[in-house]
């Protein structure tokens, strides 16, 4: 780690409060959230009963409280995960990730400042346009206790809205940086694809997490400016998340050494295991930067065996009879996903992966022009197992890599998964 492992131990303000303030300090993190919900909601309902506020005040107030609680649950779930991320072996990518973690977890000034700006903005607006508060609070308007309660709740919301915005903005920034840094990889440098996957799923969770701000829409809809603010906020969250997800798609999963073999070699060996005996056959395959694809016939033994057990191993190797040191081999193991079956589930999968299937078809046409020509010209004379019509006679298998081993100069290197 470039800037030392201790630096990630620092926490968000919210987490520190949860760790230090008495009722929460004694509870495990999962109960903290429940305790928070019960505490704030009880106070709110008591205030509602005491001051005889209108009914929609309690509903909207509860929605706001639910928002803060859902957010807190997300926070306690996502942040530890983020801290556990392992470092890429490529120095530039490592720096991008280090900066990202630093900005997100250690930048207390941005955290407090942004939240204060949000809070002051909403507070000023409520102060100028007092009708909203008057409408909601009814007879309680002007009560100092209620005033403090409103202040706390709006700080809570402003703080959380700002942090959501900050995380998504940072995620988009990081993804773009990572995609750019990935181009400078050499040899075996890379970001383990499990980490890429983790970051991607974190982005998705982040989107849902920030998206819970939808709960605030009913409250905001009572005023033109507040609704404008919340719609702008949701649009920004969605936009940044999309940018982040798309940039993550550009990060290749394997180091350049492995990719060069996968792109240039023309044959792979697929091993399937059922009924106590493995079965190995050569296939032609395509690689799109992430997954390995190969097409098999419905009539083939492989199809039958993969249906029984979808754990497969695929070996791609670069042969050189002249020099033992020039031989390179990649062994990928994982689950095979069948694409293009005409069954209810198969059609659903085709619906999801349809565009990819067309892309892979083009990939094959580009990589094996002679094979494709042969299949096309001899279509009438070939036996059924050799027909290459998609859907009718062929099914595509996508290998989801779980374990990757790479041999170079007769030494195996296990790539992190």
């Amino acid at each position, binding site marked *: 780690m470039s800037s030392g492992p201790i630096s990630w131990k620092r926490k968000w303000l919210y987490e520190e409060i949860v760790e230090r303030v008495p009722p929460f300090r004694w509870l495990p993190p999962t109960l903290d959230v429940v305790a928070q919900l019960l505490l704030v909601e009880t106070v709110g309902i008591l205030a509602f009963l005491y001051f005889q506020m209108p009914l929609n005040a309690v509903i909207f107030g509860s929605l706001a409280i639910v928002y803060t609680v859902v957010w807190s649950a997300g926070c306690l779930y996502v942040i530890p995960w983020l801290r556990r991320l392992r470092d890429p072996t490529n120095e530039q990518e490592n720096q991008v990730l280090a900066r990202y973690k630093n900005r997100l977890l250690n930048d207390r000034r941005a955290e407090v400042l942004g939240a204060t700006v949000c809070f002051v903005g909403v507070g000023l607006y409520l102060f100028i346009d007092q009708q909203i508060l008057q409408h909601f609070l009814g007879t309680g308007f002007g009560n100092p206790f209620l005033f403090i309660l409103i202040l706390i709740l709006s700080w809570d919301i402003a703080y959380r809205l700002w942090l959501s915005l900050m995380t998504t903005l940072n995620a988009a920034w990081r993804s773009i940086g990572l995609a750019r840094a990935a181009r400078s990889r050499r040899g075996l440098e890379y970001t383990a694809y499990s980490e890429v996957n983790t970051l991607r799923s974190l982005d998705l969770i982040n989107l849902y997490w920030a998206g819970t701000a939808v709960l605030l829409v009913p409250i905001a809809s009572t005023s033109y400016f507040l609704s404008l603010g919340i719609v702008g906020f949701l649009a920004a969250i969605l936009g940044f998340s999309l940018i982040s997800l798309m940039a993550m798609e550009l990060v290749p999963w394997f180091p350049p050494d492995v990719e060069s073999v996968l792109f240039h070699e023309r044959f792979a060996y697929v091993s399937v295991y059922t009924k*106590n*005996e*493995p079965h*190995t056959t050569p296939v032609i395959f395509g690689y799109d930067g992430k997954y390995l694809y190969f097409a098999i016939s419905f009539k083939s033994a492989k199809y039958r065996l993969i249906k029984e057990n979808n754990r497969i191993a695929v*070996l791609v190797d670069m*042969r050189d009879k002249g020099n*033992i040191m020039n031989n390179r081999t990649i062994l990928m193991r994982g689950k095979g996903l069948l694409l293009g079956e005409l069954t209810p589930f198969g059609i659903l999968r085709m619906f999801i992966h349809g565009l990819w299937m067309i892309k892979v078809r083009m990939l094959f046409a580009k990589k094996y022009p002679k094979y494709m020509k*042969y299949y096309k010209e001899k279509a009438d004379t070939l036996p059924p197992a050799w027909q290459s019509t998609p859907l009718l006679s062929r099914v595509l298998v996508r290998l989801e890599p779980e374990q990757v081993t790479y041999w170079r100069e007769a030494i195996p290197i296990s790539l992190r998964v």
Partner: protein
Amino acid sequence: MTSELVIKLKAQKPVPRAAMNLLENQFFSYLSTVEADSNPHITTMFYVWDEARLRIYMITGENSRKARNIRINNRVSVTVDNRDPESPAGNCGVLIRGRANIVDIEEIGDVIMNKYFGKYLLFLGTGFPLGSRVFIEVIPRILHYWKGVHFFKWLNPHYEKPIYKFSQVVSSISDSSTLQR
């Protein structure tokens, strides 16, 4: 019905000449074994084909992954093929499914040993270490041969189904676990 079929197939002799030639002349083979967690595992291997006994021999490290896998589950498959990047009709290959034995290097005999080094000496160089190495002997149960669209299947009439004894299985597993440690 099935037994009739088996007899019929067993009567189909012998292994085609082309398959024998392919096994004799190819340089690399692909050995597929089964891991303890029943996932398949493949490796590229050097091999020699013993035409007289219809067996394949390979050398590997005593504690290598494949040797450990074979000690736990001795069912393997070996593929030897000739690739033709021009046309799929030119592809031919042999798929052998059967069982493997681990044989000590002293017990293998000079014929196989000489054949192995005759085939691979130029490639391996003289510094090839033989300590802690063992031979893998593959006995085919079934042999598939294909050339282009034509397929051929041969069942080994002399293949005996392995009889597992519980004590053997247990000892093989405990053997491999000590090796892993």
